[in-house]
């Protein structure tokens, strides 16, 4: 399920205002702090959360519970298919469709096929990796509720954010906020869905 889908749970929360609440977000100044905070949140049982950082922070995605390896798998499969495809193209064209007997040499002169086969492997793996990464990340997505959080422009320059989303089973407007205030953040705020 894409983490970008937001449910307007009519009647799921206790107060009418929860329909418009996306989550609670905490702002940190240092990369280390956000990793510790993510870890503690995971320990506390929260699962539907995400962090927003201006650079990739080691250990953060694991602390948040993300462990997928879709991208390498896709690229491997695509690379293999590209290899078979490239070699297959040449095998078909030169071996089956229009074979030429040149001085009694091998019809399927496979050493000559290797450069093109290699290039097709790399091309297939690269294209799949890039477009696959963009697709599974759900990009292009010009708007996301978290963009409306205060100071969020700093997520792309110098601040680190952790957001616990309202779809989490343990989410409670008051309790979660109290919990997040113990994480050592510079600021804790609510993220609201734009109407």
């Amino acid at each position, binding site marked *: 399920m894409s*983490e970008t889908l937001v449910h307007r749970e009519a009647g799921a929360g206790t107060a009418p205002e929860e329909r418009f609440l996306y989550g609670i977000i905490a702002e940190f*100044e*240092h*990369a*280390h*702090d956000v990793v510790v905070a*993510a870890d503690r949140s995971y320990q506390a049982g929260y699962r539907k959360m*995400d962090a*927003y*950082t*201006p*650079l*990739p*922070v080691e250990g*953060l*995605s694991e602390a*948040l519970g*993300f462990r*997928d*390896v879709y*991208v*390498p798998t896709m*690229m491997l499969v695509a690379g293999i298919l590209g290899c078979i495809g490239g070699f297959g*193209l*040449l095998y078909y*064209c*030169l071996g089956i*469709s*229009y074979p030429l007997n040149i001085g009694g040499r091998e019809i399927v*002169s496979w050493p*000559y*096929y290797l*450069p*093109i086969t*290699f*290039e*097709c492997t*790399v*091309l297939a*793996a*690269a294209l799949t*990796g*890039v477009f696959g*990464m963009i697709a*599974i*990340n759900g*990009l*292009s*997505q*010009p*708007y*996301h509720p*978290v*963009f409306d959080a205060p100071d969020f*422009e*700093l*997520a*792309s*320059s*110098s601040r680190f954010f952790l957001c616990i989303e309202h779809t989490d089973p343990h989410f409670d407007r008051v309790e979660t906020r109290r919990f997040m205030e113990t994480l050592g953040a510079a600021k804790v705020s609510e993220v609201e869905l734009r109407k």
Partner: protein
Amino acid sequence: MIDSRNRRGTAVGERDETFEIIRPGHTYESVTSKIAGLVLNNNISLKWLAAVALFAGIGSVGIFAILLTLLFGVGLWGNNQPVGWAFDIINFVWWIGIGHAGTLISAILLLLHQNWRTSINRYAEAMTLFAVAQAGMFPLLHIGRHQYFYWLIPLPNSMALWPQFRSPLMWDFFAISTYLTVSLLFWYVGLIPDLATLRDRAQHRFVKIFYGMLSLGWRGSALHWRRYTMLYLLLAGLSTPLVLSVHSIVSFDFSVGIVPGWHSTIFPPYFVAGAIFAGFAMTLILAIPLRATCNLRDLITMKHLENMGKVMLATGLIVFYGYIMEVFFGWYSANTYENYMTFANRMLGPYAWSYWALILCNGLAPQVLWWKKSRTNIVVLFIVSLIVSVGMWLERFVIIVTSLSFDYVPSAWAMYYPKPTDYAIYFGTIGLFFTLFLLFVRALPAISIAEMRELILHHGHGAGVSEHGAAPARH
């Protein structure tokens, strides 16, 4: 906050240069605003405009010459029988070679954990794209009947024919297309987080929307970063053998043929080393004015320039070894034609001036870089880079023209003289290349902002110190 212990004067005036990878004292915010400020400022520098006008002017002369070629045919060039390949292939190989340094810096140095690649990889990768764009024009232009360029593509057709897949020229078609595509994708993927930074810092609405669209709504989500970094590493891993294979395939254009002076197994490694050599020369030619005019000396430091000089020296030595080996083969092979080609023709024949200029430019000039004093002298580095660029062009000239003009049988011998269209197209591509680069520097971040932040995070230097002076976290 500048650490005075790192201050070391260089040979160029009292310019304050550092030998660190990044000048200490930088924070995430300072690095971001410095680099983003190059793009997001409202002033259009007059010097920049003048430079664009100059190079675009030169480029348009080239475009005009290309148009003439398309209209009147390849007869406008100096190519003849037996010298069927001349400036076209020289320029093609020269540009592709230049492009390889960008991929080496982006991909290979990343895999080797060389942190000094960080501030130079973005503009070097852009250099690759623009160089490959120039190179790609030549295979298309040098075919006699331009309207049949699509015959290179293996599509079923009414003549029931396929392209000659056993030819290095077809391998080139696949290799260069793949190289251009993968480099473009690698460069764009690297740009996505920086485009998001520009989107968030832009003041003007249209600028915000422009970068917003290009950044695909990137918000720095940890889940996205996870997949992003996996992809980035894998693309680097793919690009590394790609660089090696592409220029090897380009060298096969020569070595697979039986022309004396061409048919040699040393060509693939010698060409790849030569490509990196020429590419780093061009990277230096771009770095030196870039850091001066855009005030990036804190980020592209003397360390980077010195390291680039070292790589140039190393690859220059490999290339020089290649030249020595060619002379050895000429003698050791006991093949009359190879012997003739090496000694009587290249060294003493009508094009001997180019051979000896080549030895001077590529063999002797880079030896200056053994001394640290010259490696850290910006003027010396710039001049040596220019000489090396010329030398690498001459190398392809020597390989192609001397071998083709005087090969096996005297009845096939003839001189080659370039014509004005040849020069016009060549200098035109140089103009176009610099025009594209100037536009890039103005429109996109010339240094990878996200990666510079990583450098600050992992290597101290005031790591993560906020503007409010909070203490750095332990790592």
